[in-house]
C-alpha cells in the first residue's frame, strides 16, 4: 500500500522539520521494509538490526531527500538494499555454488519441495548467493511484488536492465538449486 503521492510528498517535507511526520512515515513503511529485510536475511535479530539501520539512515538523511518523482518507499528500499549488502559484506561469507548444488536433489520437482520449510529456506539461500544486483532485483520482485519500474527506481537502473537482472538471477537460482546442470559441465 502506498500513500497518495501528493500527501506523501507533503509528509516527507514535514518530516524534515517535524518528528511526528517522520513517525507517520515510519508507521506506514515499517512493515514493508522489515518484511523486505527479513526476506533477505531470514533471521529476526539480523532483520531488526538492519531495519533499525535503515530507518536511522533515513532519519539522518531526510533533510537532503528530494522526491525526484519517485515514491518515498523507493528511497527506503534503496537504503535497505545497501544496508543488506553491507550486512552481508561484514557478516556472511559467500557460500559456494558447489555447496548449493551438493545438497540439491535434481530428481525431485521443485514445486513438490516448496511445502518443506527447509527447502524454502534453501531456495532463498540460493538467492543469497546471487550477485548483489541480481539478488536485490529478485528479492524486490519475488519477495515484495514490486513492479519492474519500481525496482528500477530503487536500483537506479532501467526497466530493461532490471529484466536482465531477474532473468539472470532466475537462471542462477536454478543452477544453485541443481535444477539444471551448468552448460559448461555438460559433456
Amino acid at each position: 500500500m502506498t500513500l497518495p503521492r501528493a500527501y506523501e510528498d507533503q509528509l516527507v517535507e514535514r518530516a524534515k522539520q517535524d518528528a511526528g511526520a517522520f513517525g507517520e512515515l515510519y508507521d506506514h513503511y515499517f512493515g514493508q521494509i522489515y518484511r523486505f529485510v527479513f526476506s533477505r536475511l531470514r533471521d529476526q535479530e539480523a532483520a531488526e538490526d538492519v531495519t533499525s539501520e535503515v530507518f536511522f539512515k533515513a532519519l539522518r538523511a531526510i533533510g537532503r531527500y528530494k522526491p525526484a518523482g519517485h515514491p518515498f518507499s523507493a528511497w527506503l528500499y534503496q537504503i535497505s538494499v545497501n544496508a543488506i549488502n553491507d550486512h552481508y559484506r561484514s557478516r556472511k561469507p559467500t557460500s559456494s555454488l558447489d555447496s548449493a548444488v551438493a545438497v540439491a536433489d535434481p530428481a525431485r520437482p521443485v514445486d513438490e519441495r516448496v511445502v518443506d520449510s527447509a527447502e524454502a529456506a534453501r531456495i532463498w539461500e540460493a538467492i543469497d548467493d546471487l550477485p548483489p544486483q541480481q539478488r536485490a532485483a529478485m528479492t524486490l520482485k519475488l519477495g515484495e511484488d514490486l513492479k519492474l519500474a519500481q525496482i528500477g527506481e530503487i536500483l537506479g537502473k532501467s526497466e530493461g536492465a532490471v529484466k536482465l537482472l531477474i532473468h539472470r538471477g532466475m537462471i542462477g537460482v536454478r543452477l544453485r538449486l541443481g535444477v539444471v546442470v551448468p552448460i559448461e559441465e555438460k559433456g
Partner: protein
Amino acid sequence: MSWMGGWFDPELEELFRDEPELMETAQQVRAARPQSEPDPRFQNRLRAQLIAEASRGHGARSWWRLGSTHAAWGGAILGAALIGATVLTFVSNHPQDKTITAISAVTAEHAVDPNNVIQVKFNQPMNKTAIAKGLRIQPATVVTLSWIGNNLEITPVHHLTGNTPYTVTIPQSSLVAATGAVATTEIVIPFATAPTPPVARTAPPTLTLSTVGPQGTGIDGANGTLLFAPDGSLVSTAGLLQTAAGTPPTATPTQSATPSPSPTATPEGVPDNAPNGAGNLVDYAAGGKPFALTAAASAAAYSPNGTYVASAVDDGKGGSTIVVTLSDGSQQPPTRLTDSSTPVTALTWASNDRIVYTDGTTINEVDLSGKVTTLFTVSASGGTVGTFAPGGSYAYVLPASGTGGSLLDIATGAETVLQGSGTEVGFSGDGSTVLWADQSATPNRFWTESVTQQAPVSMSLLNANATYSNIAVDQDGDEAAYLMTLPSNVEELVVAEVPSGTPIAIEPVTSAPSALALSPGGDHIALLGTDSNGIVQVQQASVPGATAAHVAPGIPAAANSTLHAFVEAQVNGDLATLGSLSGPNANAAANTPQNLSRAYVISSYVEPKGVVSASVELIVDPNAGHTSVEVASETLALAPDSSGSTYVVTRIASTPLRNEASGPHVVAVNSSTQSGQTTLVVSFDSDLNPASVEGAVTVLDSNGATLTSSTVYDADSRTATVTIANAPAGALTLDISTALIDVYGQTLAHPFQTEVGTSS
C-alpha cells in the same frame, strides 16, 4: 496462469513467456519467500529511538533542535528519559488495532513559552471524551482541549506560569483509541516554562476610547468600515463631514483627472464626493481637519507604497465604480478605473498598479490603465468571496451555509477549508496570516495559520463561554483585536497576542461596537460605536504596551541587581561569579545545590538597617535519574560592600534538595504601600479554587497580631491581592495555610510564611 495461492505477475509472465522453466522457478521462489511479521515490541522500541534521535536534532531539522538550556538534561538523560517521555508508544491489546503512539514537542523542554499551547500528536483517532476525563496538569492548570485531526491541543485557560516545571499526565485508562484499543501505559510529558523570574502579573490595562474627528460628526448610519492610512490616520468608508458652521462641505470635485500622477483612465462618470449626509471615504487626519478622499465606499484600500487609495463607490445604477485617488486627498475628483454592474464588496491592491476586487462571485483585477482581467469565479454552489488578504494572493470564501469557509489561492484556485470558519475571519496587514473563529465548536475557538501552510494553531481565548466577533489583525499577524460577548451580554474589546492569546488590553464597551480595525503596528485600535445621542461615531484608542515586569518596591536597584545576578549564577553553577558577589562570610559554593535548572525569588524586603533579605526557591527539573521536581529553599541577606554602592551577599542558608510536594506553591510575593494602604500580591503556580483563598490568608504585624485584611483572587494571573488598610510600619508576616486548595482539590504544598516590607 494461476498458481500457488493465485499469484500472477504479468511482467514475469511476459519476461519468461518463452522460458516456462524460469517462470516455474519464479513461482517456486515466490511461494517459498520468507514470511515473518515484525515483533511489535521491536517496532515500538525502534520508533521511540527514532523520535528520540529526531528530538536530539540530528539532520537539518531546526524544529527538533533543543535550546541551550536543554543541555541540563545531559546525554544519558536523553537516552532514557526522552524515549520514555517524548515518544509515547503503547501496544494495544486489541487484536485488530495498531499501536497507539503519541508525541509532544514540549517534552523535556526547559524553556517553553508560558503562552504556548501544548500539542500531543497521536497516530490515530482517539476517544476524546476519555482523554478529556483523565488529562491533568501539575501544577494544577485549567485547560481547554481541542482536536485537529489526531492532534490534541491543550490550551491553558490562564496561560502557564513562567519558570515552572510542569507535568502533563494522561492515565493509561484514558488512552483509548477510537477503535476501543487501550494503551498499556500512561503518558507523562514533563516540561518547564522559560527560566525567567516570574513576572508579577496584573490585570491587562484598559483602553481609553475617544471619538475621532474634531467635530464628532459621526458616520452615515451604521455603515462602513474603518482602515488605517499609511500615515497612521484613521479612515472611514462612510464618514460624514461638516463645516465649522455646520454646513456641508463645498468642495465639489471636478471631473478632471488632471492631478492624477499616473492613472489615466477617463474620468467620465466619476461619482462626486457626497456633499452632504450621504457619507464619504473620510480621512480623519491626526491633528488636522478631516477630508474626503472619495464618495462613500463599499470597500477601500491603500496601495502598498501608500501613494494611492482605491475605493469602490456606488455608481448609482446598482453597481460600483472602482476609483483611485492620491492618498493625501490632493487629487479631486478621483480617477475612474472601471465599473462593475454588481456591487463590489471587497478590494485590495496586488501591487502598486493593480487592484483586485470582487462582487462576491467573481474576482477581477484592474490596473491603473483600466484594463480588467478576471482571475477567478466561484462556482454556483461554492460560497461567496468575503475578504482579501492584503496583497491579493488569497481570499476568504464564505461558506454557502453554516461553517467551513475556505482560504482561496486566487492564482491556482486551490481552496483550503478553514475549520469551522464562518463570518469571523481576519488577515494580517501583510497578507501572510489568517485568523478565524471556529464557530462549529462549542465553545468557540480561534485558529491562526500562515496562508501558505495548512498548520492551524489554536489561540487561547479569555472566556470559554463567550462568543467572538469583529476580528482585526495587525500588520505582521502577531497581535489581534476582537470583540468578546460574555454570556451576560456584556461586550468587551480585547487586544491580544497571536497566537498565545495573552491579553494586551481589555475594555468593556457599551456602544454596540463594530468594524474593529487595528493599526499596522498594533498600537491603535478603532471601531464604530454609538454615542449617547444615538449617533454612530468613529472611536479610537491607543493600545498600551504589555504589562511591565515587576520591580520589588523599596529594594535598592543595586541590591536587586546583585540578587538576581547571584541567583542566576547559582543556576548556572558559575562559582566565580558567586564568589565575586559574596562577602567573606557567605559560602555560596557550599550552599548551592548542583545541577540546578531554575530558581525564583519569592520575596525580598528591606530590613530596618538597610539589609535586604530574600527568599529563593532553587529547583532541579526532573531527569532520568530522578523523575520528581526537586527543590531547595534558600534565604539570602544582602548588604552594601565597603564602597557603599554595590551590594554583596552576606549571608546564605539553604535547605537540602527535597522532592517538591504536590499541590500549589507560592512563587512570588510583592508588596507596595500607598496612602497608608499596603498591598501584597501573592503569585501561585497553580489554578486555585477561588473560594479557598481568602480564608487561608492571614497577615500579622511585627508583634504577631492579626491585621484586618481583604483578599481577592484573580484567576487569570493566579494572584491573590491582599489589602491591609493602615498597616503599621515595618515588617509584616504573610501566612498562608493549607486551607488553600487548587482546582483539583490539592492543598497548598506546605504552609507558607514570609516577611514583607511596607515601604512605598
